[in-house]
């Protein structure tokens, strides 16, 4: 209110033609100021402010786009990392499985080989046994035939030499045995028991 009173006083002073009142607007200044402000407003509103508003929006879009791209890149990197980890885990599992397989396979091969070797050995031993038995059979058979013949021959000689002289008979037996031993040295080992039996 006091300012209004002061204004009234100053206007009154102006009217009296004393000091020019600072409260009295000069029409020419009013017009110049209004025109200048109006021109400035229309100029800036036409050219500058829309430009700023546009760059503002573009920058916001660019920043948001940048953030979005960065987020996408991060997600991509995360995916790649997970994929890599999964692949690594797969590879580790695969390696472990291969090692396990190899171990079991090796054991199986070893067991197989051992079994086949055992079978071979068994077969060879079996064949040897069979052969020995067959040879023994053959020898026994041939000895039996020979011992029979020998015994018959010996008996004939003993009887033909006349059994009067013990000493002679003893000699005959000795000779027989020597012959037998000689033939034995030439022939197979199993002859003696056969000869004894005969």
């Amino acid at each position, binding site marked *: 209110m006091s*300012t*209004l009173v002061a*204004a009234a006083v*100053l206007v009154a002073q102006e009217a009296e033609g004393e*000091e*020019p*009142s*600072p*409260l*009295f*607007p*000069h*029409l*020419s*200044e*009013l017009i*110049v*100021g*209004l025109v*200048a*402000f109006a*021109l*400035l*407003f229309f*100029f*800036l*509103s036409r*050219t*500058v*402010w829309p*430009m*700023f508003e*546009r*760059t*503002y929006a*573009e*920058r916001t879009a*660019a920043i948001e786009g940048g953030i979005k791209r960065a987020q996408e890149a991060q997600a991509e990197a995360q995916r790649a990392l997970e994929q890599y980890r999964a692949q690594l885990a797969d590879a580790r599992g695969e390696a472990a499985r291969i090692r396990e397989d190899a171990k079991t396979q090796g054991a199986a091969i070893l067991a197989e080989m051992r079994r086949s070797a055992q079978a071979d050995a068994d077969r060879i031993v079996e064949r040897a046994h069979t052969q020995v038995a067959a040879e023994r059979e053959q020898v026994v058979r041939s000895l039996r035939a020979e011992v029979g013949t020998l015994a018959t021959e010996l008996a004939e000689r003993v009887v033909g030499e006349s059994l009067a002289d013990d000493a002679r008979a003893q000699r005959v037996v000795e000779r027989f045995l020597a012959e037998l031993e000689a033939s034995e040295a030439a022939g197979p080992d199993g002859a003696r028991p056969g000869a004894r039996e005969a």
Partner: protein
Amino acid sequence: MNAWRTVAMSEEFHAPGPGDFDYPPLFGWFTKPMLIVVLGTLVVGAFFYFASRRASIVPGKLQFAAEGFYGFVRNQIAADAIGREGIKYVPYLATLLAFLVALNISGIIPPLQFPATSKIAIPLFLAVISWVIYNYVGIRRQGFGGYFTNMMFPSGVPPLIYPLLAPIEFLSTVVFRPVTLTLRLTFNMFAGHLVLLLCILGGEFLLLHVRGLVGFSAGAVAILFGIVMTFFEGFIQLLQAYVFVLLSAIYIGGALTHDH
């Protein structure tokens, strides 16, 4: 003029007064305040024109400064005082702030050294523009009756207060707001310029005409104080430009919303 007067009348000091705000015409009816208005307008227009001529997403220094100014009006003043609708009024508020800053700060720019806004005509027509805008948007938004009803009888107030409140609110909105806008700016600039004149002219008088120990020491203090006051005035000039724009924005924001 005043300096000339002090030199001519060496034995007597004339304190600066309202007369120092009346300049003789430079030519015809064109005075120094008008020259400052024209220069300030050209400088503001040229600054923003060159700042925005090659506007890009990554701004240069000039564009950065101009956009900082625009962004300040847009995001600090308009967004806070008006809200989301404030963007519509940013062109007016930004132009207003630039215009006022230029015409205020001319008070401490050496060759001009006169705040054009201390001439009441300038703040007056700007206050009238703000007054027209906020009353117009208020009436358009709330209707003629609604605008004045909401203004004079705000909700949340005991009805007993209304006889007292209604005329105060009416006078405040319709009369006092433009008057206070005008007078606050005009006389802040007026008083600031007067203080600077007093310090500098008084100091000059003391140094040149009083002389002696008292004259030189007091004159030196007065001149130094004048320099300090110049910086202070710069601050006041920026602050008053901001206050004028902020209040205009608040009035517009208030007219757009029902409850105050």
